[in-house]
């Protein structure tokens, strides 16, 4: 089989993995080498589905011994199969990289013929790239659950990011759709990678020469909408992954129907809107100081599809508002719908010099359509409607804004990589 055909098969098989981030590493080029990593990440193109293309995203092989119901590559699915040699992957990566098509490589694999041999193949490829090809660009490699820790650990010393996909939020869901996978086998390497990262960071504080281990951190992905799990369950899982395993990112992937298995729901289209809400909530966990239990509870365990999670929370907590924009401290400023991290920082800067009124806020990038109901400026309220949950809710629900349209898709997933220094795109980048 020629290289072109392999690439067709093994990129099509990899595309459902949503992570394409190339940020978080500042690996330097070495004399005589090629490539470096950009800490802020760079997008090299945008595919027809509007997602950033940063890394060459391929599988080493799509031959698989497992039969996970939600996956195109499952053993029982009849589709063309292929496997790259390490040399082929390295050649593609280097030639794409030298033409500036990509930031680096995201290498994953189906499991063939067993976890250890799969991990060995991945390790051989990254070793070849780093040593023989002297490639110093970004590498993201999957750790295969069930593989020997020594193989995973050695891979970790060569790459920028590693991920183990958690796939489904609960053991029950795994049992149902991927019975060959055990939750423990997934969580164990995650924890080990996590503690190894922390350890190496500590060592590097002592000595710059200490080897880096997965410097861009660890991520994972889970599928949304293939099982009955609630948003609350998912968000609590993410929260504990961030707080306890120090994950850098959790990616959410709306389930794209790829099978007619009766265990799977029949969906007309992927639940993109739900995925979008999860990304927004994830953002609130990481950058806005929210906790999962503030956003959802057993009584209402799923996000409102027409209302962003922050507005939803604010409406349920009207007694905390309205806040005086010239006084309120940063922590609370972040909790105002329509104010994001950037605009909150701008407000802090600007009000050092003069007190702000309504018009100023707009210029600072605050989304007034939402913020107006929750703020006062110099003591004056600009909501222009009775301060009650129902009336404000009605206003907020009044047809989605343009901004909302833009953010709809998984775009959000990589938004931090889009325009890191500049914030021209602030309004569409997770500023809630």
């Amino acid at each position, binding site marked *: 089989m020629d*290289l*072109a055909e392999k*690439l067709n098969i093994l*990129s099509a098989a990899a*595309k*459902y993995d949503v992570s394409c981030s190339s940020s978080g590493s500042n690996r330097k*080029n070495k*004399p*005589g*080498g*090629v*490539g*470096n990593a*950009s800490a802020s990440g*760079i*997008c*090299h*193109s*945008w*595919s*027809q*589905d*509007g997602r*950033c*293309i*940063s890394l*060459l*995203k391929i599988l080493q092989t799509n031959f698989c011994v497992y039969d996970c119901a939600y996956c195109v590559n499952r053993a029982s699915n009849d589709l063309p199969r292929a496997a790259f040699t390490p040399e082929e992957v390295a050649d*593609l990566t280097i*030639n*794409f990289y*030298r*033409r*500036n*098509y990509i930031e680096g490589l995201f290498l994953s694999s189906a499991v063939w013929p067993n976890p250890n041999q799969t991990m060995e193949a991945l390790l051989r490829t990254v070793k070849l790239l780093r040593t023989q090809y002297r490639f110093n*660009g970004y590498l993201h490699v999957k750790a295969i659950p069930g593989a020997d820790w020594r193989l995973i650990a050695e891979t970790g010393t060569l790459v920028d990011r590693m991920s183990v996909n958690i796939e489904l939020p609960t053991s029950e869901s795994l049992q149902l759709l991927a019975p060959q996978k055990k939750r423990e086998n997934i969580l164990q390497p995650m924890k080990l990678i996590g503690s190894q990262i922390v350890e190496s960071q500590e060592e590097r504080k002592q000595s710059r020469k200490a080897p880096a281990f997965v410097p861009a951190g660890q991520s994972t992905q889970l599928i949304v909408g293939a099982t009955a799990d609630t948003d609350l369950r998912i968000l609590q899982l993410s929260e504990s992954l961030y707080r306890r395993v120090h994950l850098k990112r959790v990616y959410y992937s709306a389930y794209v129907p790829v099978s007619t298995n009766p265990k799977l729901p029949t969906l007309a*289209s*992927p639940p*993109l809107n739900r995925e979008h809400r999860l990304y927004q909530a994830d953002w609130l966990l990481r950058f806005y100081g929210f906790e999962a239990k503030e956003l959802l509870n057993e009584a209402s365990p799923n996000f409102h599809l027409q209302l962003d999670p922050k507005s939803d929370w604010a409406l349920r907590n009207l007694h905390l508002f309205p806040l005086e924009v010239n006084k309120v401290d940063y922590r609370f400023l972040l909790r105002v719908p329509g104010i994001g991290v950037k605009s909150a920082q701008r407000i802090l*800067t*600007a009000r*050092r*010099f003069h007190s702000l009124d309504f018009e*100023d806020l707009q*210029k*600072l990038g605050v989304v007034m359509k939402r913020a107006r109901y929750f703020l006062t400026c110099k003591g004056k309220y600009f909501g222009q409607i009775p301060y009650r949950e129902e009336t404000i809710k009605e206003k907020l629900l009044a047809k989605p804004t343009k901004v909302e349209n*833009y953010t*709809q*898709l*998984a*775009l959000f997933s990589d938004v931090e990589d*889009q*325009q*890191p*220094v*500049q*914030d*021209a*795109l602030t309004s*569409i980048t997770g500023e809630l």
Partner: protein
Amino acid sequence: MIIYLYDGSFEGLLTAIYEAYYRSEKPEQIMAQQSYQPDLFSQPRVIATDSDKAGKVYDAIERKISHEALEHVFYVYLSELPGVGTLIYRYLQFGWRVGADINGHLSLEPVREVLRISQKVGVERHRMLGLLRFKKIQGELYYAPFEPDYNIVGLMAPHFARRLADQNWIIHDLKRGVAAFYNQERWLIRELAGTGQLNWEENEAFYQELWQNYFQRIAVEGRTNRKVQRQFMPARYWHHLIEKPTQ
């Protein structure tokens, strides 16, 4: 109305700023000579570029205001937008008074305007770091043509000199007829009008085709979203891409 005219270079602009500070005859506008249209009311003053004077202004911005302000001024200059000479003059006038705090004064028009334009230039630079495409020419040389809105070739070169350090390359701004040349040691900027016929390396077409196919295949059907695609990758940049997004 007094107008200072400079030769279009950054040094020229800084010299004009210097003169505006020391001469008693203050300008109402500062603009590049090329963009000046004589009219009845304006009294042009041609400012001769002087690198000593320019150097003094350069240092003063960094010392008395901030390094950040200097960077903003340079980015705004590179935008080549009409009126930026005067804008930079107003921004600095204010900067001499308030110093390092300048960019906090967002209620002031020149400050906001400088930040806005500087950001646009920065955004384009960042975007082009990703969208630039090299093609391999016979004789171990990579060539990347592009047509940026702003004059950013000099802002891009250092990035590629670090990254593609072991290859020879040319980044060619076709719009302005300038190019950055790199020979595995250092880079410099020279005028380059056209290139004539280029002979591509033998397997250039092969990798281009692989990339085009990859681009088509990586999108997930059922999630098509052209609007977002265009939002981040405006169609005016498509011409020099290897991949072909469809309308």
